[in-house]
């Protein structure tokens, strides 16, 4: 009795499981071999531009995106910078524009003499439209204040 029941159970289980196992294994191999979808540079730029262009972007989100960009091995494209500056305008946060431009300049690294003038030239219409001054116009390309390092304040 028990053996008959067990035999039926096994055969029904085998039918239920085996076909699925086979397709599952094939799918798994494909997924592993393809290493997922690689984002091209254009897709990356579009993604960030779209993110900054969101009409309901808030202070947390804009800072998250800017901090992420600052942590990557790249200098953001001028179109991303323009979208970010317009997002700052919608949030009425002027300080963020200066900070972001400083961060972009910092990202240029040793190639700052070549990349930064190009970026300024590309974003100049947006700067003029929104009334944004570059860090240089604010005198922030040179240190303005000397401040005690927080490491030395006890």
């Amino acid at each position: 009795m028990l053996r008959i029941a067990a035999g039926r159970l096994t055969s029904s289980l085998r039918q239920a499981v085996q076909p699925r196992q086979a397709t599952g294994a094939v799918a798994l191999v494909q997924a592993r071999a393809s290493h997922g979808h690689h984002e091209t540079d254009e897709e990356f730029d579009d993604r960030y531009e779209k993110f900054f262009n969101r009409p309901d972007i808030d202070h947390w989100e804009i800072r998250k995106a800017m901090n992420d960009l600052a942590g990557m091995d790249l200098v953001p494209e001028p179109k991303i910078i323009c979208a970010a500056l317009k997002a700052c305008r919608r949030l009425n946060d002027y300080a963020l524009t200066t900070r972001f431009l400083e961060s972009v300049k910092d990202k240029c690294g040793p190639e700052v003499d070549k990349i930064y003038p190009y970026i300024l030239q590309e974003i100049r219409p947006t700067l003029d439209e929104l009334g944004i001054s570059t860090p240089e116009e604010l005198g922030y390309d040179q240190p303005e204040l000397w401040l005690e390092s927080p490491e030395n304040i006890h």
Partner: protein
Amino acid sequence: MATSRALAALLRNSPKQLQVRSYYTVNKKHGNREVVGHGINGEPIYTDLADFPMPAIRYKEITPDLQALREKEKGDWKKLSIEDKKQLYRASFRQTFAEMEAPSGDWKGVLGITLLGVSFSLWFYVWLKHYVYPPLPITFDEEHRLAQLERMKLLDVAPISGKLKDL
């Protein structure tokens, strides 16, 4: 059963201060500074970092003067003067990138103290040489060393052998 119900009622009625969110939190230390982001670790703290430039809170607390400037900021930015813009920047951030990355000049002190140590050791060696060590043995002068060389040649110590062209 009765105990657990009483405990639940106690928890419900306990004052808000007793409900500690986390032991390590620095919550409530930022005063009335605006929390504007997640920050580097989710805590409302301020740090100036070039690779993480937007901290979780604004640097300055909101004052009536600043509030007035904030209202002005909501209008056209072309009407903001350079001074206004700088004040807004300093309200949100403590240091500019140029200040963050300015050289500290610490290397001068480090080099100075290192050279002091080196010159002290050299003078200490001179003092040892003068007052502590005995004079070198007489065999260290040139005459004795040349005599030693002659003896080595006569005794054929460490000879160089073979044909001249192979050397």
